[in-house]
């Protein structure tokens, strides 16, 4: 006797399963929903893969299957699935444990993904401070009466920097070349609301993960440093014939190479 058949089933992501109810928790910072599903044991990994989402890359074309959302609160997406075998314990062809059904505990947490077909992931913003020692070869600051501050008595200038990181989830490949190429560059155009030259790419931390069907995906945390003064500017003293202040600096007299070359960040898909 088979208790579960199509008369009581639903279809989720193309997989026949049975809905055994939900439990919801809503707090100020941690809403969560837990859904219980039953599917055939042999369908479980396909279902989990669809629930959690994945990315594949074929011929340079990336296909992203986003994690499924919770119907009652679409801002919750599937982040974790626990599976327990259900029904008469038996064996597969190798003698390993197999069941007629799998009972899934599907956990939905607040979304860290965009709805534009690209997972942009988690974001963090942190702040620090940079101190610039003013040049000693000439006046840089002035008193209110117009007198130059003696460079030996001039205070250092403090200004705030911001470290911004964003985690891209489920990337089909690890873009090592892209990361290496863009290290220690600055944004050549407006980027995440910052003007050109004010954001420097610091690098990326990566974490490999496996989809439910064994394909490799990567979670990649990209880090950037925002500086309210362009990264390629330095403070120049007020010498005769030059007003001084923040000015662009170059590594060569022909003014072609700056310490942090401008680069196009659009390949990060962070917009």
């Amino acid at each position, binding site marked *: 006797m088979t208790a*579960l058949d199509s008369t009581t*089933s639903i279809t989720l992501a193309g997989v026949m399963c*049975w809905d*055994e109810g939900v439990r919801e928790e809503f707090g100020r910072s941690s809403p969560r929903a837990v859904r219980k599903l*039953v599917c055939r044991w042999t369908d479980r990994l396909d279902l989990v893969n669809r629930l959690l989402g994945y990315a594949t890359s074929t011929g340079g074309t990336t296909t992203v299957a986003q994690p499924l959302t919770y119907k009652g609160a679409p801002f919750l997406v599937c982040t974790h699935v626990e599976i327990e075998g259900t029904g008469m314990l038996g064996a597969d062809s190798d003698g390993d444990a197999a069941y007629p059904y799998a009972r899934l505990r599907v956990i939905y947490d607040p979304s860290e993904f965009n709805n534009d077909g690209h997972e942009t992931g988690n974001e963090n913003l942190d702040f620090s401070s940079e101190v610039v020692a003013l040049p000693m070869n000439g006046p840089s600051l002035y008193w209110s009466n117009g007198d130059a501050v003696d460079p030996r008595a001039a205070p250092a200038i403090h200004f705030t920097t911001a470290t911004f990181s964003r985690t891209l989830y489920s990337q089909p490949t690890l873009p090592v070349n892209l990361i290496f190429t863009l290290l220690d560059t600055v944004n050549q155009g407006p980027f995440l609301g910052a003007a050109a030259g004010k954001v420097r790419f610091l690098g990326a931390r990566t974490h490999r993960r496996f989809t439910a069907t064994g394909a490799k995906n990567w979670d990649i945390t990209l880090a950037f440093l925002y500086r309210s003064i362009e990264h390629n500017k330095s403070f120049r003293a007020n010498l005769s014939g030059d007003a001084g202040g923040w000015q662009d600096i170059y590594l060569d007299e022909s003014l072609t190479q700056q310490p942090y070359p401008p680069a196009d960040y659009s390949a990060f898909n962070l917009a």
Partner: protein
Amino acid sequence: MKFQTGHGGVATLGSYLIPIETWKVTATAQAEVFRNSKSGGHPLREAAGVDVEVEITFEFDFDANPLAETPGLRAGGELTNVHLPLRSTGLPRWEFPHLLAERVLQEMGTDGRLIVKILAHSSGVFSYPA
């Protein structure tokens, strides 16, 4: 038709014939219960395993002490090849290749009979009367 159920019933433990008073077999199924969004409030059940409990009541045999090493009907002991025929010693019968004795009860009756009860569960496959 003449009913004689239980007439001439015996129990054997290997080659040892147990002087039984009664035996009782209770086979149970572990049911997996499903309730889902479309089952309309009615639970759906599917067997997820079977178990069997065997209780044998017999008279103490002073000539072949059943609690002694042989045949050794002791709590925690394994009873092998226990057959519970429904009639005489042939078929049909329950067949238990392995039983684990979990309770042993000895009871002195005022009628002079010394009764022993063994409560056991089957370990592994068993056969229904056939």
